[in-house]
């Protein structure tokens, strides 16, 4: 199970009340019942093979009827490339208040107030969700995944899906496998123009491998096609919220900072001591990446062995 899904369950569990989780498509039965250990009391399984294609309109249809089925008025899901579009469609189907990028549990002492990230992580807004039905598309780290030791009953849940649900046809998917996905990563190693060329990315990958981190890059690097666009971290790229973000050879333009400002700790390695990124960092090293990074990789390997 994706951590973001477990965080959604943990978030719902944190709100109190009965939590029903729903899984779509082919999912192992042990994985389904295992969700009890994370706070779900019931698991609905919509096993229609058509749902293996991640078409948002089909998922929205199934989720809206699942809400009706269990009488739920609140839906929590991870704001991902699938969860986002699905949330928007259900909000209309259910005439719901919808808030995305929610960062912490709601305050229900008077009404229903939630805090969300805005201005690309540069600020927060607390908003009141006034409709009976509520959808919360949560941001990474909005809730802490905890093992509760609970058990969940698994129920099969089938919804008739028509062609109307599949107007969007997914022809092919091109996805890196076996790597840690950047939006979900706890540790990120990111490289910028200071690395001088795509041929030098080996040392970024080596450090990432030693840490068990995902790799990212700055916008110029992705614009020059040194790295694929899905690795671009920043205002118009991926926004990350890892525990540790290591920026190597990235000066720290405000647009890049917008993508990393919800990281818990930031390490900046740059040969220019005036690089603005140092102002946003927790730890900094002024030095040549080509010397510092291999030494750091070795030190991490040694510390882990």
């Amino acid at each position, binding site marked *: 199970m994706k951590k973001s899904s477990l965080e959604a369950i943990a978030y719902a569990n944190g709100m109190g009340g009965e939590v029903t989780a729903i899984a779509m498509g082919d999912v192992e039965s042990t994985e389904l019942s295992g969700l009890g250990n994370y706070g779900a009391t019931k698991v609905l399984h919509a096993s229609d093979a058509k749902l293996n294609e991640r078409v*948002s309109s089909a998922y929205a249809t199934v989720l809206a009827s699942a809400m009706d089925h269990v009488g739920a008025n609140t839906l929590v899901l991870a704001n991902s490339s699938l969860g986002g579009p699905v949330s*928007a469609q259900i909000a209309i189907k259910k005439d719901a*208040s919808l808030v995305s990028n929610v960062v912490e549990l709601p305050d229900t002492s008077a009404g229903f107030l939630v805090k969300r990230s805005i201005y690309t992580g540069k600020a927060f807004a607390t908003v009141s969700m*006034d409709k009976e039905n509520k959808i919360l598309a949560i941001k990474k780290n909005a809730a802490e995944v905890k093992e509760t030791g609970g058990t969940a009953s698994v129920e099969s849940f089938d919804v008739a899906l028509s062609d109307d649900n599949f107007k969007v046809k997914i022809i092919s998917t091109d996805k890196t496998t076996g790597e840690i996905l950047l*939006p979900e990563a706890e540790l990120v190693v990111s490289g910028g123009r200071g690395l001088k060329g795509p041929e030098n990315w080996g040392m970024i990958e080596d450090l990432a491998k030693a840490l068990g981190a995902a790799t990212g890059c700055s916008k110029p690097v992705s614009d020059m096609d040194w790295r694929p666009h*899905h690795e671009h971290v920043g205002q118009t790229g991926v926004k990350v919220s890892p525990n540790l973000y290591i920026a190597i050879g990235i000066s720290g333009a405000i647009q890049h900072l917008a993508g990393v400002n919800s990281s818990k700790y930031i*390490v900046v390695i740059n040969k220019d001591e005036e690089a603005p990124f140092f102002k946003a960092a*927790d730890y900094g090293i002024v030095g040549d990446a080509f010397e510092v990074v291999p030494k750091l990789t070795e030190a991490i390997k040694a510390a882990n062995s």
Partner: protein
Amino acid sequence: MKILVCITHVPDTTSKIAFTDGDTKFDATGVQFIIGPYDDYALARAVELKEQLGGTITALNVGGTETEPTIRKALAIGADDAVRVNADPTDSLFVAQQIAAVAKDGAYDMILMGRESIDFNGGMVHGMVGELLGIPSVSPVMTLEIEGSTAKMTREIEGGKESIELALPFVAGCQEPIAEWKIPNMRGIMSARSKPLNVVEPVDVAQGATLSKFELPAAKGGVKMINADNVQELVDLLKNEAKVI
């Protein structure tokens, strides 16, 4: 091709974010407003598709009179006409219903907008508009080609992308590298002054969520500098102080 492009009027990406009125209002003092960067990509692709296939582009903004210079810029870049729905864009559900109300009788072949605004970053309006109009929506769209009545797109997903086909009409939330931003030329700027900018009043719909207050994140403590010859110290700090590795 009849294209509707929805644009947001947002602070420039380099703006310092601050609030006034007891943290209930954005402090616009000294802030420059721009077409949302993602919306700018959508508009640029619309201009290219119009060049390729013919047709018209209507720019739409939900906002007060202060957004008109931003709308004029969209006209200068290549929209043929514009609509401003005279209301504050405070909530995605509210904005989506305003867009749907404008679009429903417009027979648009496609409705393009950015994947998200860069002020509230909701990323929900395109999906809501599609659902309200009963047409498919896709986001975030990285490439968009039209072949007859079929749209071919690539959509970014975590760790990669997917290729998608669907029939027109549709709603798309756009992002780079769908097109290069277009800078208005002098002819565009001159002609934008006389292009129609129609102001319509909002339809009466409920907000999905209402603002209680804004807040800035806690300031970061200072950076701890480590000598380049002593990477071991960094490893120790990450292990024992930050406890992240």
